[in-house]
Structures are given as C-alpha cells and as structure tokens.
C-alpha cells in the first residue's frame, strides 16, 4: 500500500488544458473520488497517475518514489476500466491469472492467489466462462479480481460502475466499499455520479473545466461548498442559490417579502461585499411554517421520493423569480398551485460572491461541517 502525491500535475492536449496544474496528496489506504461532469479532466488525471497518459508538467510520487516518467507496468498500480477491458479470448480464470503469469509467478502461487480473490468476490462458479458470456456486474467483478490478484500499491478505477444499471450499481458500490475496507488499499476512483462519490469516498476532489474546484470530505463538499459550481453540482437537486442584497441582518431575495437570515458568525465576512450576494441553502434547510415564514411562493411541482417529498416552489415574480427546492414530509398534503411559506435554518445558509462565484466567509462553517461528517448525508 502506498501514498500518492501529485505536484503541480497538468496536461495539455494541443493548446487546450485537459487538466490545469493541480496538487493532491492521497494518504495510505485512503479512498479518494475524482468527481466532475464529463470532460472536466478527471479521467485524464487518473490516467496520468496510472502512467497511461504522460504528464505535460509536474511530478507524480507513488509511495514517495518519483514515477512521473515510469511506464504503467513499473508503477505497481492496478487499473479498473469503465468497460472492464477483460481479455475476450481468455477464460475468467486465465484473465485473473494473467497479471501473475506476466510476472512469472510460480504455478502453485498463482492457483493459491486466484483462489483467494475468487473467494473474496464470490465468482468461483464463473471461472471457466468467457467474459462475453457474463453479465455486466460479473464482468466488473472479474475485472476487480484481476486488479486485486497482484496486491498492487494502489487501485485506480475509471467509472467502474458507469456501464451498469442502477440497481446493480448500488450493490457493486457496497461491494467495492467492502473490498476497500477489507484490503485497506489506496484507491482513486473516478465518477461523474455525485451520489456514488458521497457514498464511497473518504475525500472528494470536485473538478470542473480542467480545474480542481474543491477537495474535501463528503460532508465538507456538501455543507460547505467552495464555490457556486460545487454548490450546484453536489446534491440532487443541488443547493438553492438565490441572488440577493444584504439588508441589515437578512438578505433580501427574489422580490418583496422573501428574506434569508444571516447568521451572526457571517456578518463581518459579508460586511466587505458591496451588498450583492448569492445566498444558498439545501432543500432540507427549509422548514415549512403554516403562516409567517421568511419566504413563500407557489408550488410548481411535487416529487414523491418515498421517504420524503420534494417541493418545487416558485418564489418571487418577474426578473427575480426562481424555483426553490424544499424538502417536506412524505405525508404533507401539498398540491400544485397552492401557496406555501417556509423558514430557513440560519446554520445551514451559505453565501457566495456573485462575481467571483467563490464562497464568502469559508471556514466559518467548516468546523461545523467537519463535526457533521457523522450525520447522514442526504442526496
């Protein structure tokens, strides 16, 4: 097992940045997700760590050894591909044994190690089959077995569950997490699915447009996003973001009668702005109040999620009008078109600079977010 260090690593394709210079240190045994929309450079980053892609700038250290210009085969890493990349002309057994055979391992050792991983992944009954005869989930299990069998220093996974259907994805997610806990192997995992990243990782690296947006625990990126992109991207739906003007102890948003509270701890941080801010809060930060309430609007749509309902509320009129998502009790009897008023938990409100799009007063909420990591992270 090993640590992974990226020092100002960058990649350019022609004149375009695929990955702008980034730093990242991954501790031994840590599970780190690279998360972002497609084309954000997360896969390129992973491929640079693996050596399948050469870096344009910077250095990569694996277990404190500089491997920047080493071949993938010299790096002692295992790579799990999105489309499995199993050898189609070999049986499952031959596929799993391949990395050991390539190292010239003795036959009895190969048999022993193959038996171990096959046991671990419960694929013993598949050994004689060809990969093409297996389901997607089983193919990915075989690909994981092939990665595990050599006991590499680090696992690199490129959207390993991307090609599976939703139900199977949840099962495999748990299986991979379980494997990680059992093996305690340093893992870098690329995904565009924020639910997957939130559920699996110790830390998330949120990327967009070739740049790292934020590095933090799932709770940090959820409760304390570094900028508007992260706020929007994490969570489903993302954070409610409303343009507003500071008005004393509250922020005036979306027309008359709608305000968001400013917690006391933020007041000095917000004092330096010109008065324009973007206020953000999660759907679960809103609490419906019969009448009164600092915000209100008309229900535009209601999504039933089983354990709760998500209300789309149309707030304000004219230019400031926007849709706010709030969470409500699953039994709540709201119908489309009816008015609703709600309050917002001041501890859950975050503020952003509308020009730089960065979070204002970041760090004020961070300690709370860190303590919060035990708290259930909703989707």
């Amino acid at each position: 097992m090993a640590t992974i260090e990226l020092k100002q690593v960058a990649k350019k394709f022609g004149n375009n940045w695929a990955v702008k210079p980034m730093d990242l240190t991954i501790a031994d045994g840590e599970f780190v997700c690279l998360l972002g929309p497609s084309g954000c450079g997360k896969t390129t980053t992973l491929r640079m760590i693996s050596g399948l892609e050469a870096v344009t700038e910077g250095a990569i250290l694996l277990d404190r050894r500089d491997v920047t210009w080493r071949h993938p085969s010299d790096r002692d890493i295992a790579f799990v591909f999105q489309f499995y990349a199993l050898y189609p002309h070999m049986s499952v057994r031959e596929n799993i044994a391949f990395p050991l055979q390539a190292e010239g391992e003795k036959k009895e050792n190969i048999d022993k190690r193959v038996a171990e991983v096959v046991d671990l992944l419960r694929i013993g009954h598949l050994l004689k089959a060809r990969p093409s005869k297996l389901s997607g989930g089983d193919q990915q299990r075989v690909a994981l077995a092939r990665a595990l069998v050599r006991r590499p220093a680090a696992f690199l996974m490129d959207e390993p569950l991307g090609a599976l259907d939703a139900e199977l994805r949840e099962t495999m997610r748990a299986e991979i997490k379980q494997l990680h806990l059992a093996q305690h192997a340093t893992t870098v995992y690329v995904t565009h699915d924020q639910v997957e990243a939130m559920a699996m990782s110790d830390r998330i690296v949120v990327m967009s447009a070739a740049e790292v947006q934020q590095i933090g625990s799932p709770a940090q990126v959820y409760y304390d996003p570094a900028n508007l992109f992260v706020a929007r991207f994490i969570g489903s739906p993302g954070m409610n973001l409303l343009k507003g003007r500071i008005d004393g102890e509250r922020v005036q948003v979306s027309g008359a009668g709608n305000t968001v509270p400013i917690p006391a701890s933020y007041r000095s941080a917000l004092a330096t702005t010109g008065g324009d801010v973007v206020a953000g809060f999660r759907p679960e930060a809103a609490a419906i109040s019969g009448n009164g309430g600092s915000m209100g609007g008309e229900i535009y749509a209601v999504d039933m999620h089983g354990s709760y309902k998500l209300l789309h509320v149309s707030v304000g009129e004219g230019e400031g009008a926007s849709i706010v998502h709030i969470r409500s009790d699953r039994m709540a009897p709201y119908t489309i078109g009816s008015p609703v008023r709600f309050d917002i938990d001041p501890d859950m409100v975050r503020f952003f600079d509308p020009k730089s799009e960065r979070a204002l007063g970041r760090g004020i909420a961070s300690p709370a977010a860190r303590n919060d990591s035990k708290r259930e992270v909703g989707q």
Partner: protein
Amino acid sequence: MFVRAGVRTPTHNNCDNRAACGVMTEVRTDPTIAERVAASTPEPLARRVRGLSDRAIAWAFIGPTVGLLLAINIFPLLWTVYLSFTNYRANRPNEEILWIGTRNYERVLTDPDIWAAMQATAHFVVWTIVLQTVLGFGLAWLIDRKFRGSAFWTTIILIPMMLSSAVVGNFWKFLYQPQIGLFNYVVSFFTGIDPSSFDMIGSVTLAPWAIVIVDTWMWTPYVMLICLAGLRSIPDYIYEAAEVDRASPWRQFWSITLPMALPFIMLAVLFRGIENFKMFDLVVQLTGGGPGSITELTSINLKREAFEKWRTGYSSALAVILFVAVFGLANIYVKALNRVKQR
C-alpha cells in the same frame, strides 16, 4: 423464423429517481409483411398482393434468385456428376453415351500425371499460404504502428493486388529473363552469382518457386489488409489493461495481439487457400505449366483434359474429386474458424 408479425413493444419507462412514476406499456401491433408490401405498391398490384400470406410473399422475393442459382450452379454440378460416370466426349456429340460406372474415377486416381499435378498444387498452395501469411501479418503489424506516412505506404503496398493476374504473369516473365530480367540482376547484385547462370522459369527445380514468388508478391497485400483489419479490431484499452497488468511487449504480442487477430488470419488463409487451389491464369501466363509439366497445377491439368484432349467424362470425374476434396477441407476449416471466433 422468416416472418415475424405482431411484435409487442414496451416503450421507454421515463423514470428518474426524482419523479414518482409508474410503468407505462404501449402495445403496438406491426402490420404483416403482405400489408406493408401492399401499402407501398401501386393500387392494381396491391390488390393482388394483399391476399397473399407472409410465406408466399417471402417466396416471391427469393424465388428468382433461387431459380437462377438452380439453373447456373446446382444443375451443372449435378450434370457433371452424371457425366463423370459416362464415356461422353464433348467434341463427339453424336456418339453414343455409355454408362461406364466408376471406371473414370479408377483411371483418375491411378494416373501418375494427376498425382504429379496434385503435388505441384500442394507445393504451390502450402508455400504461398505460409509466405503470404507471415509476410502479410508482418506488414500489417508494421503498418499498424501508425507512423508518419503509414497511409501512403499502405497504398503503395496494395498496388500489386490491383493488377490483372494475366498482366502480372506476363511482365514477371520478363523480370525472370536470365539475360535482361531485373529479378536475376537483383539476385546477382546481392549474391554475386552470374545472372545468366540460372533461369527461374526454365529450370525444373526453380520453376515451382518462381510461381510461388510471383503469387506471394501479388497477394501478400491482400492478406495484409485482412490482418490489418484484425489488428485494428483490438481496442486500445485491452493493451492498456495488459500494460498495467505488467505484461512485456513480447507477452502482449503472444497472448493478446496474435490470439485476438487469429480469426482474421484464419479467414485470410481460407480465402488464399481456395483461390490458390484453383489457380490458373497467372501460372498459365507465366510458365504455361512448364518446364515439362512441373508447374502444371490440377486446374491447368483439368483444363487440358477437358478442352484439349476432350475427355469430358474423365475430366468430370477429376472435377468431382477436386470438388469433394476442397469442399470437405473447407468445411473442416470453417468449423475450426467458428470455434476460434466464438471464444
């Protein structure tokens, strides 16, 4: 099944985890083939078509092809089989045709000339396949490196294949000339032996190799093309997986490149085998079967028996024997090919 009608099609279930939704299924019944044909046919014809069953329509479509196939492929084959049991001679149409049983077959199989021709054919087929496969795969492997100008070189390499084989046979005759031939000159340039001391076409020992060389020169590009398709069909990520699995380039070649390209190589071998078994034009132009009958392949021999000696019954028997042999071998080979492909 030839005809399928009334397919039930469930539509997409537009469900995401946000929206509550139920499963909606729409049932659509496809029209029968007769209805569909009728819909796109002028009205008078459509009226006649509409009453037909799907099976009748299907026969109406494939009928002409099947009829043509029977007339120009199957009937002549059966007729040849019949003639092979008679003493028929095509240049004496008025003579009585006698049923002589298996006498023609006995004569063919005990004829030393036939066995010599078979040997010449075997030598030609085996060596051309071996050389073309090795060279063709090698070239494909080099071209697949995608170096600068690889497209240009591919085109250059393909030129021999585009020529007519009669032309190729003719100009190689000049290249093989002991006095003025470029081939002899090149050999002498590299080895130092006198160019006029050997005659590729005139020598009994060299002539079988002369035809092998020309056929290899002409058809290696073809094998290369098929092998190139095979190599290009191996996705990059397979090599990337092998790379992180720490396989050496040598091992990657033997455990990935070669086995995955094998179905294509086998297909090329099949095509070249069939083609060269019936080789005629190139060799006739180049050596005319000589010197003596050293390069007289079975197809040349067959043509002589049938259309120079006019032993129609006898040559029919030879043709049937060749057909059975090639058909049997090809069948066994295709089974092996399918097994490789199914992996």
